[in-house]
């Protein structure tokens, strides 16, 4: 599974900048970032190098952070790519909590990040011919897994 950071942020001007600067100062490179927000607070989901050191750096700077396991599925960068993945999961009655996507520059491939709480999504995805990425393919891991 991919280790994704989930950072709790109050809705305050400059707070996201502070979180990003903290990672920058810790020499941690981000691969993807997605903000989910409510009226009063937001959760920023980040995929980055050395996620555990990143968590520590953010906590030292006063942020609330947890590490969440997500799937990263590679699809060709073409219309319907993500729909194929979701249909395969839907057919196996696997529910997706949330998803976001980013492109691999020059690779003609998209990376689809999926949060799935139940069911063995990896088996279903691989049986349907999708490539589920390992951590080292996306970022520099800092735990053995």
């Amino acid at each position: 599974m991919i280790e994704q950071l989930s950072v709790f942020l109050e809705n305050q001007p400059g707070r996201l900048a502070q979180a990003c600067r903290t990672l920058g100062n810790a020499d941690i490179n981000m691969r993807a970032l997605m903000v989910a927000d409510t009226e009063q607070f937001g959760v920023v989901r980040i995929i980055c190098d050395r996620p555990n050191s990143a968590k520590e750096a953010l906590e030292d700077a006063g942020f609330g952070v947890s590490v969440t396991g997500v799937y990263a599925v590679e699809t060709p960068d073409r219309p319907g790519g993500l729909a194929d993945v979701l249909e395969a999961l839907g057919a196996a009655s696997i529910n997706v909590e949330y998803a976001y996507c980013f492109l691999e520059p020059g690779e003609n491939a998209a990376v689809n990040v999926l949060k799935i709480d139940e069911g063995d999504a990896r088996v279903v995805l691989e049986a349907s011919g999708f490539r589920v990425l390992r951590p080292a393919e996306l970022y520099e891991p800092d735990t053995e897994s």
Partner: protein
Amino acid sequence: MFQPQWEAMSREKLEAVQVERLNAVLSKVHERVPLYRSRFDESGVRPQVATLDDVTSLPFTVKDDLRSQYPYGMFAVPRRDIVRVHASSGTTGQITVVGYTRTDIDNWADLMARTFASAGATPDDVVQVAYGYGLFTGGLGAHYGSERLGALTVPISGGNTKRQVQVLQDFGTTILACTPSYSLLLAETAEEMGVDITSLPLRAGVFGAEPWSENMRTQIEQKLSITAIDIYGLSEVLGPGVASECSEQHGLHVNEDHFLIEIVDPETLRPVEDGTYGEVVFTTLTKEGIPVIRYRTRDISRIIPGECPCGRVFRRMERVSGRTDDMLIIRGVNVFPSQIEQVLTGIEGVAPHYQVILGRKGSMDTVEVHVEVAPDTEFDEIRELEEMQRRVRSEIESALAVSIGVRLVEPRSIERSEGKARRVIDQRGDA
């Protein structure tokens, strides 16, 4: 027990001592304090009682009386007999001054030694006094008591939290005396410094000077791996040392040989039955510098009926559950901030750190409670965070009977105080 001859005396003998001491103090204040003389004379009260029940015929004293006599008007002895003054923090404006004679200081040391002993302290202990030293009674009050008991006393005073942790570690502190909220700040700071506070010799805490809850006690006891003892006092009556829990941790024994406690209905001012909540009222029985007669503390508590297995004869008052001073009136409803803390410590995922922001929208009071999420929360799922927010809101609303807003704020974002926590920000006057 530090003074079993008093703490475990018979009820009968105690009451005889109380009547005798009460009469002595009444004569003295009538003779020497103009405010009491005119008040007794005006209301036609003779400054003598036959039984303890007669105390209810005496007039009350309130904080404003002490303010009006600022600084020295309440002294019942010539100023040259006063050897020390303390002053209340004056959160509501003018400070009030209290004076102590040499005998007062001596009695106070005994009473605080009782307090430490009832928390299990002995001369073998190392007591770190992290209450502020100065005009505030906490520091010096605890200091003299710890020394009187014979414990090794570390007069570190409040503040400089990292150094406090260092001293806890290096001096082998076994008993900590400070405000309950400060003990949590110490625990957090120790954690940040990489110090495992639970592995230190620290085994008990003597906590007072601000309202706290049973849930907060559980949290302190777990985080610091200690026994947390609640103590009670107020400068107008003495300072710390008026009442203290014993190892049963079920109610605070009032040092009744020095203080007469009454619980009265805050509206009618009539005494209530033991077991019923009301405003705590004290009469000092031995104080020389500033004796007070039926002083209304504005603290809400009750007498716990029955005897305590520890063997002390002194009756127990329950942990103070609210303060009429701190009481907020929100849309006509009486609200105690301590009720909010009680709720928060029962909900997983939030820390018991909160701030109440009172505002006004048109003619309506608005209440927003800022609540810190706990640092080890799972932050990923917005839905769960919103669910937590809803739960905090509905539980606070049902405890207070007032509708409020809740805002979840980041871990450790609410300012930690080194003395009393600032729980309420009232912006109703700013609009």
